[in-house]
């Protein structure tokens, strides 16, 4: 009987601990804010989204890179200007792009970009469309 009670208490404790872990970590787990928050914030933030139409252009006078990001969940659109230098490698192929910067005068000014590569780890064969499927 005592043993049974102990096991029940242990299971309850573990459940409570798991619930606290689940809920309290929540927001702190991601450094990325959504576009709506980025517009209101005056601090440096990180936003994550997909490149719209695979399109970007470089301003010939300033050398700045201009492109638009779309947020996955809300479909919200954000115009970004990247001032941190040349276009990163794999920019067009990126699954997602993270821009680190600040929203100023209707545009998100970023000085650092991070790019996410597709998660296919299947060698060169896959890319050429004839994976051997072993």
């Amino acid at each position, binding site marked *: 009987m005592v043993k049974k009670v102990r096991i029940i208490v*242990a299971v309850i*404790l*573990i459940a409570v*601990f*798991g619930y606290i*872990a*689940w809920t309290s*970590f929540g927001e*702190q*787990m*991601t*450094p*990325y804010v959504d576009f709506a928050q980025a517009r209101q914030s005056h601090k440096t933030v*990180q936003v*994550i989204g997909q490149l719209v139409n695979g399109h970007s252009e470089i301003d010939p006078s300033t050398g700045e890179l201009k492109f638009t990001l779309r947020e*996955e969940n809300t479909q919200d659109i954000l115009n970004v200007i990247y001032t941190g230098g040349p276009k*990163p490698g*794999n920019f067009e*192929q990126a699954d*997602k792009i*993270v821009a*680190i910067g600040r929203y100023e005068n209707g545009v998100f000014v970023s000085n*650092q*970009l*991070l*790019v*996410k*590569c*597709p*998660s*296919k*780890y*299947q*060698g*060169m*064969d*896959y*890319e050429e469309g004839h*994976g*051997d*499927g*072993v």
Partner: protein
Amino acid sequence: MPYIMKYILLIFMSAVIIAAWIVEPPQSQLGSVSRIFYFHVPAALISVLAFGFALYNSIAYLKTNEIKYDFRSASSVELGLMFCILATVSGAVFAKAAWGAYWNWDPRQTSIFILILIYGAYLALRSALDNEERRASLSAVYAILAFVTVPFLVFIVPRIYPSLHPEDTIVGSGGEMQLTGMVAVIFWISMVCFAIMFYWLYSLQSRIELIVRKRLKEI
């Protein structure tokens, strides 16, 4: 561990290291930097195995009160932390090459950082208790509670928050295997090698701790 396993490990680990460098890189767009995949992912997953060993041994200790399970649990946590740190460092190097920054608190980076803190606290707890039985039972309870966070931090967090870390690389969302061809062969042999290496270190470390305890009692 059987003697012959050490030679099998030597041969297969060498084969994995050589194959990882010779065969085409696993991720075509990233090129050669993606070869670290064969070592980074097994290190991270073996840490989960190690924390699982700590859970098992902690339950065994609470059931039997045999001190050897306590030492096995401690050895598992120490090795789990070592593999976590290997995964974090190799991941940071990989992130610099693939994303453009060593560290940006991506969900996967935050979650492994918290995991290291949680299991680091286990070692701090142990070092603070002198009484052997008290230390064993308290740290067993802690190790069981700590493991509750592992599935959440390792498998769930990176999938519910947007992340730069690739997801569903090994196992797809429908449970299907994603790797094909030589990438799959090298990866799974590497996983088995990491698991054998973990078990070898684990049995050595557990025995060392028991011997140290015996010697300390003799003094």
